[in-house]
C-alpha cells in the first residue's frame, strides 16, 4: 500500500530563497514609531485613516444638518457646504477607504496570510506610511489655510476648481488638495509595490496562488489596479497644479469671469474628466475588491463551510479588475461625448455585472446549508451582501445612457454610490475589525457593544440611503446646499430630508460606541486565545498572539491545503488549518 501521508520534505518543494535577516529594532522609537514591521505600519495606517475619517464623518453631519433643516444653521454658508462635500468625499474615498484597505488590512494580512515574515522591502514600506501621513497633514492643513479647503467637489472638475468663484479656487485650498493627492500617490506606490511583490514572490513553501485566501487575492488585485490607475490621477493633479500656479492652459478653455477675459485659452476640461475617471472608476473597485475578498473569508469561516466556487471567485476578482479599466466614461454620459462612445461604455459597464453576480451567487451558495454562526463579523458580512446587491442594482440603471441622463447629478446617484462603495465596504471593514481584532490584540471585542453597533449602523444606513433614492428620483439635484422653491420640493421630500439627517446623526453616534469598544476591549476584553473563530488561514496559526516581529518564530509554516477546509467529513475538528498535514485531503483539493 502506498503511503499517502503528505510530508513536507517529499511533497512540498524546498525553499528557493534564503531567508533575509529582518531589521531588528534597538530602541522604543524604531520599534513603535519608525517601525519597519508591517503589522505596526498597518496599525499606524489604520489609526491615521480612522482619525481623518472622523473628520469626514463630522463633515457629513454638517451637510445633513444643512440639507435636513435648510436655513436653520447660519454658519453653514453655501461656500462652507461646498467645502464640506468636497472634503467629505475626497477623505472617505482616498484617505480612509483606500488607505485602510490597502495600507491597513494589506499590511497586516498579506505577510501573515501568505506565510511571509514581513513585506519584501520593510524600509520602503515604512516610508510609505510616513508619506501618507504627510499627505493627510497637508490635506488637514487646508482647513486652516486662508480661504479654507477647496470646494470644487471631490471630482475637482476644471475649470471651476481653480477659479475664484469656487471656495479655495484662487486661495490655498486647491493647491494643498493637489499636493496632498500627489504625495498620497507617491506614498501609496511605495507600499503598493511591496504588497504586490510580497504576494508574487514572497510566499511560503506550499503556498501556491490558488491556495491563497480570497482576502489576499482581493487586496493583491486592488493593489495592482491602484498601481496602474493612480498614475492618471497623478498626471491630472500635476497638470491642474500647473494650470493654477504657472498659468498653463491644459484644462482651461478661453473664459470670461466677472466680465473679464482670463489669460487661459485652448485647454480641454474634458481631458481632465478622462484622466480623472480613468483613475476614478478603477478606484471604485480598488475599494470594492478587498471588501469582496475579506467578506468571502468571513462568510466561509463563520458559516463553517468552504467557499463555493473558489476558482470562479478568483477569476471573477481578476476579470472585474481588468474590466474596470475600460468603463470609465460611464461617469461622463452628460459631458457631451459621442453617442457611440456611450454605447461602448454602457456595454462594458453592464458586462461587469456578470462576474459581480457570480460572486454574489457564490456567497449565497456558501451560506446555503452552512452552519451559520451569527457572530458580529458574520452579521456585517451578511449586511454587506444585501447592501452590495442593492447598490449594484441601481448601478444597472445608471450604467445605461438613456436612464442615466435624467438621473445624472441627482440624489439618486448619491444614494447609489453610497450604498455600493460607501456602506458596503464599510460594513466589511467593521466585520473585518471584529474578526481580526483578537489576532491583533489578543482580546475579543465586547459582543453586546458590537451587536448594538451593528444593528444601529445597518438599519440606520438603510434609513439614510433608501429614502435618498426616492428624493433623487423626484428630481432633487445633488451638491445644492439649498433648493428653495421648486416643484419637486414637496412636503414629503422635506420630511424625508429631515428624516435622513436625523438617521445620519444617529448612525454617526453609533460609531462612537464602536470606537469606545476598540479602546475598552484592549484592556477589559475577553481573552481570545490564538484562534477564537477556529479559522484555517495562516494568520491564526502564529506561535504567539499577537504575532511577534517576524511572525513565525524559527520556521516559516509549510502549507498543505487551501484556506477553506471547514467541516471536512472525517476530520478530527470542523476546520483544518492550512499548515496541517492531515492525510487524505491533499489530493482532493485544488492544487
Amino acid at each position, binding site marked *: 500500500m502506498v503511503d499517502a501521508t503528505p510530508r513536507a520534505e517529499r511533497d512540498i518543494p524546498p525553499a528557493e530563497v534564503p531567508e533575509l535577516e529582518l531589521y531588528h529594532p534597538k530602541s522604543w522609537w524604531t520599534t513603535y514609531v519608525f517601525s519597519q514591521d508591517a503589522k505596526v505600519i498597518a496599525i499606524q495606517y489604520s489609526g491615521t485613516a480612522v482619525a481623518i475619517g472622523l473628520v469626514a464623518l463630522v463633515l457629513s453631519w454638517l451637510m445633513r444638518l444643512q440639507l435636513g433643516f435648510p436655513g436653520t444653521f447660519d454658519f453653514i454658508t453655501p461656500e462652507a457646504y461646498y467645502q464640506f462635500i468636497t472634503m467629505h468625499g475626497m477623505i472617505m474615498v482616498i484617505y480612509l477607504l483606500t488607505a485602510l484597505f490597502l495600507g491597513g488590512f494589506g499590511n497586516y494580512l498579506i505577510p501573515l496570510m501568505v506565510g511571509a515574515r514581513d513585506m519584501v522591502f520593510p524600509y520602503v514600506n515604512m516610508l510609505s506610511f510616513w508619506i501618507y501621513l504627510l499627505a493627510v497633514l497637508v490635506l488637514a492643513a487646508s482647513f486652516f489655510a486662508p480661504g479654507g479647503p477647496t470646494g470644487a467637489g471631490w471630482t475637482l472638475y476644471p475649470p471651476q476648481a481653480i477659479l475664484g468663484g469656487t471656495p479655495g479656487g484662487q486661495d490655498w485650498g486647491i493647491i494643498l488638495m493637489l499636493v496632498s493627492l500627489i504625495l498620497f500617490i507617491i506614498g501609496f506606490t511605495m507600499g503598493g*509595490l511591496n504588497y504586490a511583490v510580497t504576494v508574487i514572490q*514572497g510566499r511560503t513553501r*506550499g503556498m501556491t496562488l490558488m491556495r491563497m485566501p480570497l482576502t489576499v487575492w482581493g487586496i493583491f488585485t486592488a493593489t495592482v489596479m491602484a498601481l496602474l490607475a493612480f498614475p492618471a490621477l497623478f498626471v491630472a493633479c500635476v*497638470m491642474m497644479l500647473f494650470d493654477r500656479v504657472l*498659468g*498653463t*492652459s*491644459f484644462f482651461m478653455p478661453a473664459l470670461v469671469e466677472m466680465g473679464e477675459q482670463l*489669460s487661459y485659452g*485652448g485647454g480641454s476640461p474634458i481631458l481632465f474628466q478622462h484622466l480623472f475617471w480613468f483613475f476614478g472608476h478603477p478606484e471604485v473597485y480598488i475599494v470594492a475588491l478587498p471588501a469582496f475578498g475579506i467578506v468571502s473569508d468571513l462568510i466561509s469561516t463563520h458559516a463553517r463551510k468552504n467557499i463555493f466556487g473558489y476558482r470562479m471567485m478568483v477569476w471573477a476578482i481578476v476579470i472585474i479588475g481588468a474590466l474596470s479599466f475600460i468603463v470609465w466614461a460611464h461617469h461622463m454620459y452628460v459631458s457631451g461625448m459621442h453617442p457611440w462612445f456611450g454605447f461602448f461604455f454602457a456595454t462594458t459597464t453592464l458586462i461587469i455585472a456578470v462576474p459581480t453576480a457570480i460572486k454574489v451567487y457564490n456567497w449565497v451558495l456558501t451560506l446555503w446549508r452552512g452552519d451559520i454562526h451569527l457572530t458580529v463579523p458574520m452579521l456585517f458580512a451578511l449586511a454587506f451582501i444585501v447592501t452590495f446587491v442593492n447598490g449594484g442594482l441601481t448601478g444597472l440603471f445608471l450604467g445605461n445612457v438613456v436612464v442615466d441622463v435624467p438621473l445624472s447629478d441627482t440624489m439618486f446617484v448619491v444614494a447609489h454610490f453610497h450604498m455600493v462603495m460607501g456602506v458596503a465596504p464599510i460594513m466589511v471593514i467593521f466585520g473585518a475589525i471584529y474578526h481580526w481584532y483578537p489576532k491583533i490584540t489578543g482580546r475579543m471585542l465586547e459582543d453586546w457593544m458590537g451587536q448594538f453597533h451593528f444593528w444601529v449602523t445597518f438599519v440606520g444606513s438603510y434609513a439614510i440611503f433608501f429614502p435618498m433614492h426616492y428624493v433623487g428620483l423626484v428630481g432633487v439635484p445633488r451638491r445644492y446646499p439649498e433648493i428653495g422653491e421648486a416643484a419637486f420640493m414637496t412636503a414629503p421630500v422635506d420630511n424625508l430630508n429631515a428624516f435622513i439627517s436625523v438617521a445620519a446623526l444617529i448612525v454617526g453616534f453609533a460609531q462612537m460606541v464602536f470606537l469606545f469598544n476598540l479602546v475598552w476591549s484592549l484592556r477589559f476584553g475577553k481573552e481570545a486565545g490564538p484562534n477564537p473563530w477556529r479559522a484555517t488561514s495562516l494568520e491564526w496559526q502564529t506561535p504567539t498572539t499577537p504575532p511577534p516581529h517576524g511572525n513565525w518564530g524559527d520556521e516559516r509554516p509549510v502549507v498543505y491545503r487551501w484556506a477553506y477546509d471547514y467541516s471536512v467529513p472525517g476530520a478530527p475538528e470542523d476546520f483544518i488549518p492550512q499548515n496541517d498535514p492531515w492525510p487524505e485531503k491533499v489530493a482532493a483539493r485544488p492544487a
Partner: protein
Amino acid sequence: MAETSLNGFGAQPTRPNGMRGVVADWASDQRAFKSASWGKSMMWIFLLSDTFIFGCFLLAYMTARMSTTVPWPDASSVFALHIGGADMPLILIAIMTFVLISSSGTMAMAVNFAYRRNRRMTVILLLLTALMGATFVGMQAFEWTKLITEGVRPWGNPWGAPQFGATFFMITGFHGTHVTFGVIFLLIVARKVWRGDYDRGTRGFFTSRPGDYEHVETMGLYWHFVDLVWVFIFAFFYLW
C-alpha cells in the same frame, strides 16, 4: 542564465520550457518569477506603473495638440540650431538622443562586468553612463535656456498654441528629472562597487539589507526604461 544564479536567487535547474514552464511557474508555490529576485520584480512593477504616468502625459499632450484651434509651432524650425551660417534642424536633439542611447550600451556592459566581478570595468562603465546622463541633462538645460530666451513660456510662445510650451516643459522636465535621479543612483552604485560593498555584502545605510551585484542590473533596468521613454518623447515632440 548563468549570471542570474550568481545572486543566490537562481532558478531551479529542472523546469519545463515555453508556455508549460510559464504555467508551471505560476502554479507553483513561493515565487511566480523563478529567476527574479525581490528587487528586480519590484523594479519591473514600478516601471510598469511609471509607464502609465508617461503614457498619460503623452496622451494628454496628443489631446492638447489635436484639440487646440491655434496652429502648433513647427518642430523643425523651433528645434533648429544656427551653426556655421546654416540652420540645422534637430541637430541638438540628434546629439542628445545619440548620447542617451549610447549610455544604455555602456550600462548594459556595466551589468555584464558586474556579474563577472570585474569591479574596475564596472565602475568605469557606470561612471561613463552617469557622465553621458549628466551630459544629456546639461544639453537639455541648454535647450530650455535657448527656448526661454526666444520667448517660450509655459503659458505662451511667439509661434502658436500656448500648450506647446506647457507640454514641452512638463514632459521633458519630468523625463529630465528621471534622468537626474538615475545619474545620482548610478553614482551611488558606482561608489558601492568601487568600495567592494557588493563583494562583502555590506549592509545598506537605510535598509540594512546586504548589498549584491544584482543591484547593478536593477539600476540598469531603470536606466534602460528612461532611455526607452525618451525614444517616445523624441518621436512625439520632435518628429511629429
